């Protein structure tokens, strides 16, 4: 698994060049921030440009109006001479002393006819912006150019332009940030049903294949995905059910032929062969029972309110398995708590777990030694044997299905401890194994104590 994972990792790592975001929200926030940054830079620039061009427009229109006023004062005499009579009221405006407005009037050939200033040169220089009007008065074409010295420009217009960023432009940035925050909020709300659906999905497992994802409140764009997942789960559940049913059926079907075989063997005359065959049938029957137990465990749904008396469970198991131990010249004893120990769990399942532990211990304990089953007031069961113990590196392996230390042994399929682990998992309990100082193994099951005040019998 780990190898596959790292392989995938390097594969995606080399393919993806841009920063990849696992979260949809962070991806959106990232792209949104880029968009906000771009807009925050360009929007003020565009506004600034528009403002400037609008001001220029206004300015040009004013200059044109002035040029037209000046044009009205141009008279072309019958001899072709052009006269220009600037009224006194306007003279001040164009005076060099005032220095703000200037005009040039040229004929069609570009010769300067009249000017407000004495210096030679164009009205339209760097700092002077203006407009030109061409008029034909009595057949003579004149070009009137009026300019304004921008260094003396209207103070208000000047202020608006120069203070644009400080006074107006900044507002775009907070507006964009607020929009960003609102977007994140909206998006989080929109995907909240998806979070709920994933929470639901996290409960799905081999023991709970009946759960389906909710389609209510899921955004319409995602509904096809959710529906497809649900349909996939339907197919998986079918597969699982067929599989489980097969295990259960197969085990059931084996029982009658085994019963026939066993009974037939028992009718044979006494002898070693008969005993050997009988033992084979015995262990095979046990495997069939364990397979059924596993199939049942896989479908088990525990009632969370169910409680069981752990001491009674262990007493039952020790009583049931004692004849088996005694037949092998081994001993088994129940120790620990005298009073009931109430825990959360199903008695039958607990019996199976303790039975399999005890059976395993009897199998490995030496002849003429004892297996102890000890019930603790804290909801624990310890099963101790006088066998070879469990090596450190095998302590996980032994709980796997079909694992056997000694493959030569024919007395079991390596299912017992996997059943113990299965029952423990279903009960949110733990199972651990340790070696005893004096030799032998100790298996410890720890269950959750039930609230005595509520469920203890009077």
């Amino acid at each position, binding site marked *: 698994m780990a190898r596959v994972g790292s392989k995938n990792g390097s594969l995606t790592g080399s393919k993806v060049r841009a920063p990849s975001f696992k979260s949809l929200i962070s991806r959106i926030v990232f792209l949104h921030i880029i968009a906000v940054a771009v807009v925050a830079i360009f929007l003020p620039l565009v506004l600034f440009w528009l403002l400037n061009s609008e001001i220029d427009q206004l300015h040009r229109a004013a200059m044109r109006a002035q040029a037209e006023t000046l044009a009205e004062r141009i008279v072309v005499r019958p001899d072709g001479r052009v006269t220009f009579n600037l009224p006194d009221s306007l003279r001040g405006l164009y005076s060099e002393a005032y220095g703000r407005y200037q005009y040039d009037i040229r004929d069609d050939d570009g010769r300067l006819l009249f000017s407000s200033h004495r210096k030679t040169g164009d009205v339209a220089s760097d700092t002077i912006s203006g407009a030109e009007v061409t008029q034909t008065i009595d057949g003579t074409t004149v070009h009137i150019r009026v300019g304004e010295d921008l260094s003396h420009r209207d103070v208000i217009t000047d202020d608006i332009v120069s203070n644009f960023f400080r006074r107006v432009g900044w507002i775009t940035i907070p507006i964009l940030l607020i929009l960003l925050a609102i977007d994140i909020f909206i998006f989080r709300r929109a995907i909240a049903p998806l979070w709920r659906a994933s929470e639901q999905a996290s409960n799905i497992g081999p023991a709970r294949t009946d759960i389906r994802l909710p389609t209510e409140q899921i955004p319409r764009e995602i509904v096809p995905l959710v529906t497809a997942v649900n349909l996939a789960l339907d197919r998986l559940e079918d597969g699982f059910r067929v599989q489980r049913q097969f295990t259960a059926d197969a085990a*059931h*079907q084996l*029982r*009658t032929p*085994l*019963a*026939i*075989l*066993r*009974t*037939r063997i*028992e*009718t044979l005359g006494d002898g070693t062969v008969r005993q050997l065959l009988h033992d084979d*049938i015995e262990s095979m*029957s046990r495997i*069939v*029972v364990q397979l*059924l137990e596993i199939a*049942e465990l896989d479908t088990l749904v525990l009632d969370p309110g169910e409680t069981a008396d752990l001491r009674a469970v262990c*007493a039952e198991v*020790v*009583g*049931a398995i*004692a*004849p088996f131990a*005694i037949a092998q010249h081994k*001993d*088994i*004893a*129940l*120790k620990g708590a005298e009073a009931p120990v109430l825990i959360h769990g199903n008695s*039958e*399942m607990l019996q199976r777990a303790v039975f399999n532990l005890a059976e395993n211990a009897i199998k490995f304990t030496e002849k003429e030694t004892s297996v102890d*089953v000890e019930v603790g007031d804290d909801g624990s069961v310890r099963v101790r044997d006088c066998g070879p113990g469990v090596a450190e590196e095998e302590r996980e392996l032994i709980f796997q299905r079909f694992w056997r230390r000694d493959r030569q042994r024919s007395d079991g399929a390596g299912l017992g401890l996997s059943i113990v682990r299965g029952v423990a998992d279903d009960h949110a309990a733990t199972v651990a194994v340790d070696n005893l100082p004096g030799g032998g193994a100790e298996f410890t099951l720890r269950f959750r104590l039930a609230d005595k005040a509520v469920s203890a019998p009077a």
Partner: protein
Amino acid sequence: MRLLIVEDNAELSRLVANGLAGAGYESDIVASTEEAREAVHNVSYAAMILDLGLPDGDGLSVLRELRRQMEPLPVLVLTARGGVQDRVNGLRSGADDYLAKPFAMEELVARLEAILRRPGQLLGRSLRLANLVYDTESRQIFVDDKPRIISSRETSVLEILLRRQGRVVPKKNVEDHIFGLEGEVASNAVEVYVSRLRKQLTEHGAKVVIHTVRGVGYMMAEEK
């Protein structure tokens, strides 16, 4: 005394019938719920061995019907179904005992005899283990067919252990059996009686042994 075997697998029912014949019981074999109803109606059987998965229905339906008619016929359910729920259902439906396939013929006979020995049932009086025989009515004990005297309380212990020979009898049950509802009983009283019984059995030469399963109870078995 006749037994009825309800089992659809012909091979298995034949073998079970042979096994029972070996233990001294005659039996009839039927293979469906319909035949079972008819047989029970016509013949008075001592007990019925009932398989649950039958071709024309569930064996439990026959059992429920019998119990509704207040028919006390002892029923030992024999089945390939071994699940928890199945066992609970079987016993709730009125089965006297429940044995999952595959079973040992020995155990089938033992369980059957345990049912038959219950008060009011046909198989009577004597309990047997190795060379030890106990007559439940006269409360007499025989070793190698010779009568022996064992004191009263020890005889009670012997009886309950013999009734459930090969199985562990919880200490509490032994206690209740000896003292009934006598009230306060010394905590080591049962141990005392069991050890006295052991001694007396040894003295009389009975080839049986009482195993102590510490923390649980006692089991009587043949000496090996």
